[in-house]
């Protein structure tokens, strides 16, 4: 007996990326689901392509792995042939045009290119439907509505790096809490003009217990204050 989804949602994952004053943050969960089975609890959904570009993937795991390799190969070939690095927008267009012949087939990839090139930080969403969107904040996957809920409220341009990282982690955490197809750990990448750097993978179980403790403390504080008020 299964619960019917109110609207069709594929891409069992939560990935997100946003631009702020300190560069680009890319975050993703690490659960690979096959229907109701957790096929692998520790997958890499964020893959570096070159020193200044990482790609977050969602959709079919196999398709994403293949297309990331193809993209990496084509970028390197371009660099060797033309003696310059392709811009992030050019990379996105190349990927979109390579995916176009497979539109209408079962190929399912939804990638967010997070990078830094000559014109600054860039965030571009490319998917196998053909969509190619440049923006400041994207979240992709079945957990994305929950992530947007957290990000839209607190994302500001002048966050510090620690605040941005903590916001990304919380957004993924809240999404994994509600979405059955996301979970396990959170990967975080930070891209600046100097290149990408990866944070240590964090178990969301720890985040959950920290959140429970925080709530318990707030309830305690609330109870003490009510008692104090009652005493006058």
């Amino acid at each position, binding site marked *: 007996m299964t619960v019917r989804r109110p609207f*069709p949602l594929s891409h069992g994952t939560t990935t997100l990326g946003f631009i702020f004053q300190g560069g680009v943050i890319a975050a993703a969960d690490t659960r690979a689901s096959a229907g109701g089975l957790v096929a692998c609890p520790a997958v890499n959904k964020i893959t570096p392509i070159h020193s200044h570009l990482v790609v977050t993937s969602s959709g079919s795991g196999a398709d994403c792995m293949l297309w990331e390799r193809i993209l990496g190969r084509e970028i390197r070939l371009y660099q060797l042939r033309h003696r310059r690095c392709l811009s992030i927008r050019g990379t996105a267009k190349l990927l979109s045009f390579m995916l176009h012949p497979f539109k209408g087939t079962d190929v399912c990839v939804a990638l967010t290119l997070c990078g830094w090139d000559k014109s600054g930080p860039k965030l571009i969403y490319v*998917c196998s439907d*053909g*969509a*190619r*969107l440049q*923006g400041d904040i994207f979240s992709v996957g079945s957990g*994305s*509505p929950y992530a947007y809920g957290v990000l839209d409220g607190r994302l500001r341009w002048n966050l510090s790096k620690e605040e941005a990282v903590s916001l990304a982690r919380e957004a993924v955490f809240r999404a994994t809490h509600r979405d059955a197809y996301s979970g396990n750990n959170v990967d975080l990448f930070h891209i600046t003009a100097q290149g990408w750097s990866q944070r240590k993978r964090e178990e969301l179980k720890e985040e959950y217990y920290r959140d429970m403790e925080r709530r318990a403390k707030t309830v305690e504080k609330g109870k003490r204050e009510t008692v104090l008020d009652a005493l006058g």
Partner: protein
Amino acid sequence: MEYLVGIQGPDFVLVAADNVAASSIIQMKHDYDKMFKLSEKILLLCVGEAGDTAQFAEYIQKNVQLYKMRNGYELSPSAAANFTRKNLADYLRSRTPYHVNLLLAGYDDTDGPGLYYMDHLSSLSKAPFAAHGYGAFLTLSILDQHYRPDLTREEAVDLLKKCIEELRKRFILNLPSFTVRLIDKEGIHDLEKICTGAK
């Protein structure tokens, strides 16, 4: 979910499009531009299936530019519209049809302003005013009621604002802002974005 509208005046064409790029129930972008500049005096407004819109519109855009490079002069709006329709029709019965709805707006130095309505079945019609999307059901009657062939630019913008106000009031989806552009003998002008106030 998306909305396009065009109004032709005696010496200009006014066009507007919403700014939402959506994926299922999520607004992925609030500032997406659905107008593609084909030449100095021709705009192509394109809505429809996710990847098809940009792919098809950019294909037409580059081919119009190529024509200019090869022949030394630009395609007229009427020729561009017919070229677009032919491409749409050729792909219609292939394995990969383009599911796009279009408005082509242009100013020809000899024939004056023109607005061309095309749909995904590759029908083409020159019209004094036109709209695409669910919003068209709500706004075509307003355009029918108030349109006159001798509208001034201010009156056309007011008519456009009436249409958008109706959408704000009655359309179930929230379309927060609209890009507005005007084409006349001087070229393409960006007008002020119309926002429906809900932020």
